[in-house]
């Protein structure tokens, strides 16, 4: 009876559970991605779905036709090339902005009284629980030509005609900073909060000025948090769709809206798949870099 051997039963359950979950991810994560790779290597066709099969069977012989033509087309097309460069630029600027705004904020929370910290952290994170779409939409009302920002500046007499902010790269950066700030702030806060203050005290006892203490002690010690935050901002920011679409209008091309259009408007699935594969490859590079830095850091620590 199975009751006599409970360990065995549990092991069976384990395999069943693990196998089931792995199967889910194979079907809904790995296979779909391999499909993207497959279609990026196939010809475009006027069929539904709009791509030619890679394998053909003429009754006696199996033939496979793979083409790298989509990647050639991709890198020969200035729209795609500029969109990739634009995405990388926007993601890089967003990361820097998040660091400039997020570091002082994270520091301010970490330096507050221990009893006040959880409430402050909650206060800072509540806006980010609000719908992503709503937060972007809110900025349209502020940044447009007759929006609140322009009206206020006109009323104050700072400017005499409305500034064009919406549908420029500035509005994209404002939206990106606003939406991606918590991804930088939270991991950095976690590091700052655990930091050993005695090291800073020691530095100032030894005559270091506050700024120098920050530059030579606090900042280097907080770098793991800065790296984690930068990665969490940079990677998703590169693939951002909604912000450039809603705040950027037609300016400052990023790759995700271009990719979307080639799926739904041009219906050129092979090139859109090639663009998706390229995006993943592009993003694996910073991930691999940070992984290496982290591995080296833990080697040094050990």
């Amino acid at each position, binding site marked *: 009876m199975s009751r006599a051997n*409970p*360990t065995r*039963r*549990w092991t069976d*359950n384990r395999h069943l*559970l*693990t196998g*089931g*979950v*792995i199967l*889910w*991810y194979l079907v*809904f*994560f790995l296979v*779909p991605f391999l499909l*993207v790779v497959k279609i990026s290597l196939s010809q475009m066709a006027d069929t539904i*779905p709009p791509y030619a099969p890679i394998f053909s069977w003429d009754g006696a012989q199996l033939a496979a036709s793979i083409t790298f033509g989509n990647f050639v087309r991709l890198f020969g097309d200035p729209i795609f090339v500029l969109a990739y460069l634009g995405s990388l630029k926007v993601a890089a600027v967003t990361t820097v902005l998040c660091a400039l*705004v997020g570091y*002082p904020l994270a*520091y*301010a*929370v970490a*330096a*507050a009284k*221990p009893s006040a910290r959880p409430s402050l952290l*909650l*206060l800072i994170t509540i806006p980010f*629980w*609000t*719908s*992503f*779409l*709503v937060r972007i*939409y*809110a900025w349209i*009302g*502020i940044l*447009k030509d007759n929006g*609140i920002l322009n009206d206020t500046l006109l009323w104050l007499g700072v400017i005499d005609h409305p500034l064009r902010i919406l549908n420029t790269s500035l509005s994209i950066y404002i939206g990106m900073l*606003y939406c991606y700030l918590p991804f930088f702030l939270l991991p950095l806060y976690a590091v*700052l909060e*655990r*930091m*050993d*203050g005695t090291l*800073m005290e020691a530095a100032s006892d030894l005559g270091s000025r506050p700024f120098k203490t920050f530059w030579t002690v606090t900042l280097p010690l907080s770098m793991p948090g800065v790296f984690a935050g930068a990665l969490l901002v940079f990677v*998703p920011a590169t*693939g951002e*769709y*909604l912000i450039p679409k*809603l705040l950027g209008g037609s300016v400052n091309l990023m790759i*995700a809206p271009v990719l*979307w259009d080639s*799926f739904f408007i041009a219906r050129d*699935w092979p090139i859109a*798949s090639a663009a*998706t594969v390229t*995006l*993943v490859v592009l*993003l694996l590079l910073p991930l691999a870099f940070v992984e290496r830095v982290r591995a080296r850091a833990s080697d040094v620590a050990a």
Partner: protein
Amino acid sequence: MSIIASPALRVRLRIVLIAGLIFLYAPIVLVVLFSFNGSTSTTVWSGFSLHWYSELFNNSDVLHAARLSVEIAALSATGAMIIGTLVGLILSRFGRFKGRTLLAIMATAPLVMPEIVLAVSLLLLFVGMENLTGWPRHRGVTTIVLAHITYTAAFVTIVVQGRLAGLDRSFEEAAADLGARPIVAFFLVTVPLIAPGIAAGWLLGFSISLDDVVITQFTSGPGSTTLPLLIFSLVRRGVKPDINAIATLFVLAAGILTLGIGLLQRRRSLQQGAD
């Protein structure tokens, strides 16, 4: 001990905090405020009115989309809760096994990958499946839910893993010593202990699904327009005050969900304090 600050620095940090909070809250406060505006202008205030709300509740497109969104979010959150909890358990309690690394990568990749990559992949999967097997016939609620589960389960996994990492294993061992079979110990001891994490994961999944545009757009078909997709198309056609009203209801929903997650986290820290 954490970082220290001199009194002069403290004052400056307080200013940083206040400025930061204004930057974070001003846009949302303005949306809520203007949803109660009497005029059709989205920027000029002309008296309090519930006009836009009454318009909203008489708009059948909006109501249909809202109902669909809540249904999809509830189904997705429940699926994600089950899969995410299982992955969390498998990764932190089952030790080493073949395929562990693969599972860990696949289960948490959606956290670091741009959404559009998963969205494109799943679109191609569903189209391919339909061609091969005839199922799923057209994209719609089923395909959206399957996609949302795969995406949001990653967030549940992280929350549950965090909860399990802080859990004292002696409870499970004590149950085993007292003769509970592992499966019994699991349901009577482990699950109740990580329940706040599982519930927080459900709420997280619900709010992510309720808000999603990119994955939903790629996996939806005609007749399955969710509220975010509707708002997205409305916003692109131009800002109208009734969007302020929908947005305010979204803010309200998010506020309630955050409060729920906050309370669950609080219960968690109180329990840890008691341990």
